[in-house]
């Protein structure tokens, strides 16, 4: 189905440029001018992808983005399993994000663990009119009574909180005092703040800094004896178990993982992290802030890594090991060697079925670049990619380390643009989110959700790569895609068709 392999890079660039021009025509002039800055064709050697990013979405264009609340409650805080996260405001935000992100954890839900529960203040009109602080205080009392084994509470602000002037900080402080210094964290992640999930990540990171780190008594005895090999996994949300299939590799190479941020994480792990010797950072976008803070305040270096696909995993293991002594460096080599036969077998099985297939991505966080290596390990090519809420530093990393010359780049893509791009480029696979999944499947394009791993996973680490390869094969080579056309309908139609 793919058309690009038959074209030269120059031809691909021309086609992609023409395609951008074409989609822009649908917009009113002002919108076309604004959107033009978010679309580009990557030029090799450039320091970034040549697109504007992290600016406001345009009203009415069907952006795929979410909000700051989603970034804080949905991404950063929600997976901290032994704390109760109150969705503070009307019922909807907590309802739609309830257990939807597949942050795996172990624990007795409802007793000492609370990830897949929806705690909400369920604001009514009177709370808007008279303010919700008293209700919030009462909610905390009721939580203490009914969920006595919770290790802390966060207040995840929804839009109205910041608009009606509630003082959630004061409530949190007062209740923390009342409950013997209990960790209670107010988070100002109202959905209207910022332009996407991204500000929510930042606000959530800052809240950990201000309400967890800064509350730790400096003379508190450590809960465990530190070792020279203590690291923290930062920016892995354990979707489908990703952090676990990553942790096992770090431990096998001789490191000790003292904290997971935040998939299957706990308050104790957050509090212990300033004791780490190195922070290893997977999702740079959502947790670079706290990593930088720990570097400045505690002198902990941080190291970005990529655990998608054997090439990047090996590269990353060596990079992480470079911060440690020979024992760890040897450990990294042993781990790479241990899994080599598995990787060889996975690639031998799946690469012949996937060689030359093209992929278009549109995802959030780290994935628009991080998964490219995994596809390349399978002989596949990413021909278009873009970030839901990336910043320029994401596009720099993408340009310098990941994408090929001529790749179509689309920042904060609109539904319309994405459909048109896919219709014209006709990739063999699209990787994006639930809102996009069925659009492209209707068009007859194989699709994998690359936020939730389409209910599969893990995709991180060596164990995850086997699943990733199996899933991509399953999507692309499913017999269903041969049946989309009724055999008696013989007239020639374009292969894929977006909505007019």
């Amino acid at each position, binding site marked *: 189905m793919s058309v690009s392999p038959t074209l030269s890079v120059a031809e691909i660039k021309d086609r992609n440029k023409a395609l951008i021009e074409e989609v822009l025509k649908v917009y009113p002039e002002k*919108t076309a001018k604004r959107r033009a800055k978010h679309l580009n064709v990557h030029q090799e050697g450039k320091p970034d992808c040549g697109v504007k990013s992290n600016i406001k979405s345009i009203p009415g264009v069907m952006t795929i983005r979410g909000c700051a609340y989603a970034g804080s409650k949905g991404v950063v805080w929600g997976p901290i399993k032994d704390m109760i996260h109150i969705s503070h405001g009307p019922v909807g935000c907590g309802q739609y994000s309830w257990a939807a992100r597949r942050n795996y954890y172990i624990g007795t839900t409802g007793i000492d663990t609370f990830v897949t529960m929806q705690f909400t203040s369920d604001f009514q009109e009177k709370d808007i009119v008279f303010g919700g602080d008293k209700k919030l205080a009462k909610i905390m009392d009721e939580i203490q009574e009914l969920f006595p084994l919770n290790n802390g509470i966060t207040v995840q602000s929804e839009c109205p909180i910041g608009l009606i002037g509630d003082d959630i900080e004061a409530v949190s402080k007062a209740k923390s005092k009342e409950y013997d210094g209990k960790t209670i964290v107010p988070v100002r992640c109202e959905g209207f703040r910022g332009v996407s999930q991204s500000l929510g990540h930042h606000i959530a990171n800052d809240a950990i800094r201000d309400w967890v780190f800064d509350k730790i008594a400096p003379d508190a005895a450590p809960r465990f004896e530190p070792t020279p090999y203590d690291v923290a996994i930062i920016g892995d949300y354990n979707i489908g178990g990703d952090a676990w299939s990553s942790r096992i590799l770090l431990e096998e190479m001789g490191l000790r993982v003292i904290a997971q941020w935040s998939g299957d994480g706990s308050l104790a792990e957050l509090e212990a992290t300033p004791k780490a010797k190195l922070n290893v950072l997977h999702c740079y976008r959502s947790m670079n802030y706290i990593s930088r803070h720990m570097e400045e305040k505690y002198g902990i270096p941080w190291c970005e890594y990529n655990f998608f696909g054997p090439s990047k995993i090996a590269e990353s293991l060596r990079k992480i090991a470079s911060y440690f002594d020979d024992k760890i460096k040897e450990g990294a080599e042993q781990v790479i060697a241990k899994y080599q036969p598995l990787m060889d077998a996975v690639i031998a099985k799946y690469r012949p079925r996937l060689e030359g297939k093209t992929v278009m991505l549109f995802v959030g966080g780290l994935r628009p670049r991080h998964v490219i290596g995994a596809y390349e390990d399978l002989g596949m090519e990413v021909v278009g990619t873009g970030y839901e809420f990336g910043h320029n530093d994401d596009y720099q990393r993408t340009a310098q380390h990941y994408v090929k010359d001529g790749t179509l780049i689309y920042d904060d893509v609109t539904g319309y643009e994405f459909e048109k791009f896919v219709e014209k480029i006709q990739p063999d696979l699209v990787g994006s989110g639930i809102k996009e999944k069925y659009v492209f499947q209707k068009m007859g394009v194989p699709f994998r959700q690359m936020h939730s791993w389409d209910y599969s996973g893990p995709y991180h680490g060596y164990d995850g790569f086997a699943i990733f390869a199996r899933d991509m094969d399953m999507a692309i080579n499913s017999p269903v895609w041969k049946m989309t056309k009724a055999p008696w309908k013989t007239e020639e139609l374009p292969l894929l068709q977006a909505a007019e």
Partner: protein
Amino acid sequence: MPQSAEHVLDHFDLFRGPEYQQMLANKKKMFENPRDPAEVERVREWAKTPEYREKNFAREALTVNPAKACQPLGAVFAAVGFEQTIPFVHGSQGCVAYYRSHLSRHFKEPSSCVSSSMTEDAAVFGGLNNMIDGLANTYNMYKPKMIAVSTTCMAEVIGDDLNAFIKTSKEKGSVPAEYDVPFAHTPAFVGSHVTGYDNALKGIIEHFWDGKAGTTAKLERKPNDKINFIGGFDGYTVGNMREVKRIFGLMGIDYTILADNSEVFDTPTDGEFRMYDGGTTLEEAADAINAKATISMQEYCTEKTLPLIAAHGQEVAAFNHPIGVSATDKFLMTLSRITGKPIPEELARERGRLVDAVADSSAHIHGKKFAIYGDPDLCLGLAGFLLELGAEPTHVLATNGGKAWAAKVQALFDSSPFGQNCHVYAGKDLWHMRSLLFTEPVDFLIGNTYGKYLERDTGTPLIRIGFPIFDRHHHHRYPVWGYQGGLNVLVWVLDRIFESIDATTNVPAKSDYSFDIIR
């Protein structure tokens, strides 16, 4: 290393291996500062007690695991029931991402909806410019026939005036002056998704009937013999609408479905993405004023819409998500009375088949106790059906149910000997239900996907009926209305009962004597 290329292990097998189990145990012990297991066990047991239930029911401020969503979700659901209509939600954009995801996860379908993407500056200055730009962009990009506007709580808190904003947008040329932009204020802090459905539908009907926000003359009603039909917020809209259309066809009734989203939530995979499909045409929406009567299948989804319609001179009739024999009888007899069309023999045969199926199977349901939760109308429909099966709907709970609803459920209980020990819970959530299931156990639980946590904690087998259903596929394509729909519900309930019996009688030489081959 348990993973292999030959037999790729998924998360459910992979993490059960000794390597991972050991790793996770170490993580917990060393770094999680875990609670004493005995203490966890003590609290776990305590949370099952009547004492805990009392504290749980004494909650005044905290809501835990509610069975309701917010207004705009219902508004979006209603809007896509009109031909080539895009729902436009004025407020923060994250909300729209949530509605679209939520609907897509249930229907396994695309869900198209736009936002005016208001941010901090709009919070300060109001969202007028977002409306002006947003309407222009949506109109140009997607060429909709109609843009149906609703609001998020952000726009409501700052007090944006949709009527004025849309008028100004038209003056600024965002969309043509005569273009249809109905609107509804849908604050998330009032009611639930069923309220939003009601408000949005009322807004659309008002728009067409009452002079399009003062821009044209109000329509004058010229009565005809047609019937308007409103389904309400319904996770089974795909199957139900088709079933209702079939019934109307059999009866020879000329009808208009208002907000028919059965096509847009069930489009084919044939190489074309249909952003729009089916739906009530705008002409039909306007012409619906002339109908003889309007029938709502869900009273609590149309509490404002029906009075508006009645005020225009039509007869209105509301049902409560009718399921089963007598509820369907009542529905059909009302249709027959209003239209003067007799109920055809074919439907009588279908009725007979449902009664036949009930007679065949009721011994397995009779006397069984059920807990039900869901939207108010669905709860009534299901409870009514269970009563006529001789079952007891012991706990009936709707987070978005009010006092009037509770009284109606109580009246239903009072109408049947099987309802004598049943109780209704309005405004309660699934954490309340958890206490109920521990302290007054039932045989089966009926609810949406989130009921699986209750099933896990309390061991009460879950029958998935409701919205949303995320973890089972395609049930929304089957009707639960009509005699045919009643049969579907009967089968779903029976399947779970039989599975449950088999699963508890399958230990050889211990509990195998009831493992019957014929049931």
